[in-house]
């Protein structure tokens, strides 16, 4: 590449009262032409905002690609990727828990750990009784819930509800259980069709029925762990016991 430098020396010629020859003009104009010929031309018929590419001769030309597309790549796309990366940890389930088998956000006891059952106390007879993990604020503590901290956002329990009832041919006995999450005001038991579990029977002689019913029940979860409420109505004769067996836990995530 060549830049142009004035070699004319006109002032010196003046001082010497010299005649400036035509060849000196030739030299100067040729130098100018040489320099100009090595400089870039403007791009003909450009599209506003397009980026520039080179042709095979090194001449800049319109690439027909708007520069705004590249801004979208680094701006809008980056923002969208950031959002994806932020959401991803909430889509991926939480980790495994010793003694439990994880399937997505469902956890089932693998049989390796000994989990305690929860015997529903008389405090739940005709009144709402809350049950939660150790260290929580519930009426009763069920330590089988302890592994399911707020990290796992436990929201539903698969409960086995074992009811032992004694009845005879002369009367029917029954047990109605109402369930609710720990953080709601439960609907009034018996005022609507809100029985969660029910066992009622009338055998031909005095007999005992020992039966497990199974179902998912809602729980709330917070820093105190999972919590739910139970209310039962006992029938006319002896319900010997009600106990809960934890058969599974379903979790959620901290984001919508």
């Amino acid at each position: 590449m060549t830049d142009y430098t004035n070699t004319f020396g006109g002032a010196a010629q003046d001082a010497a009262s010299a005649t400036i020859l035509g060849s000196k003009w030739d030299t100067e104009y040729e130098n100018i032409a040489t320099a100009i010929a090595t400089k870039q031309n403007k791009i003909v018929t450009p599209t506003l905002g397009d980026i520039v590419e080179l042709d095979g001769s090194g001449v800049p030309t319109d690439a027909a690609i708007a520069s705004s597309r590249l801004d979208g790549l680094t701006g809008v796309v980056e923002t969208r990727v950031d959002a994806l990366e932020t959401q991803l940890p909430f889509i991926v389930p939480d980790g495994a828990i010793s003694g439990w088998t994880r399937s997505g956000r469902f956890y089932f006891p693998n049989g390796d750990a000994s989990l305690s059952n929860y015997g529903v106390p008389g405090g739940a007879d005709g009144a709402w009784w809350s049950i939660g993990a150790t260290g929580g604020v519930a009426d009763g503590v069920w330590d089988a819930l302890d592994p399911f901290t707020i990290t796992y956002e436990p929201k539903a329990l698969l409960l086995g509800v074992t009811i032992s009832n004694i009845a005879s041919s002369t009367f029917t006995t029954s047990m109605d259980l109402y369930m609710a999450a720990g953080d709601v005001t439960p609907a009034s038991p018996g005022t609507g069709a809100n029985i969660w579990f029910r066992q009622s029977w009338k055998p031909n002689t005095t007999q005992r029925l020992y039966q497990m019913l199974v179902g998912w029940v809602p729980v709330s979860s917070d820093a105190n762990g999972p919590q739910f409420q139970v209310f039962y109505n006992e029938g006319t004769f002896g319900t010997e016991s009600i106990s809960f067996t934890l058969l599974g836990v379903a979790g959620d995530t901290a984001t919508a």
Partner: protein
Amino acid sequence: MSDYTKVFDGAAKDSGNATVLGADHDTEFDAIATAVNSKADQVASATAGNLAELSADGNLVDSGIASANLDGLTGVVETRVAALETSQDSLTPADAVTNHIRAWGMQIVDGSQNITTFDYKTNVTEGAFESLGPTGSGATNIYDEMDDVPSTARAILFMCEIDTSISTGFGGVKVHGAVNGVTGAINDSTIKAIVQMDADSGDAQETHTQVIIPCDSSQRVQIAWASVASATLTAGSLTYQGFIEDIS
């Protein structure tokens, strides 16, 4: 950066019969030099289609990157990001329905509301599947407690009541469930809840237990019930308790 503007005024020289000095030309040539030297040099060599980039001295040089690649990168990345966003949306469960608790893909009523029951004993003919679904679903039996179930639901949770009395001997009641529209038989493979026992006259047993029945894209299930031997269905109902949605 400067453009060249002629400084020399030949006409003025002419009118004044003035001598054009060599110094006048120096001025002009210096102005030309300033302008020419502020322009970018041509690119010495390049591959057609490559992007230009700046050199340290402000000239253009071949970047070695084809502009088509950059355009392709933008297009490909945008397409892939859009696909990821679509996938992420489909991997994220629906918001919790009012008065439900969400456990990722499963939502259960939270116990704060009374829920009306669907009386299958009265409304479903014994021994035949009949559809059950939300308002507007086209099901034979409409159960409006299912109205808020989203279209992504693939199974419905019900509390199933079976209240049966048995005159004598062995008997009971079975409740069957299936996704609406399939032609499944009312047999052991479709049993969702069952109460059976040996009994004497007047014996009875009632159970409420949870069942999960798959639904079609209109949130319809089909249910059937059948009594066995000498049993009579005293009362039978389903109570909506939630749903499981597809996240995939």
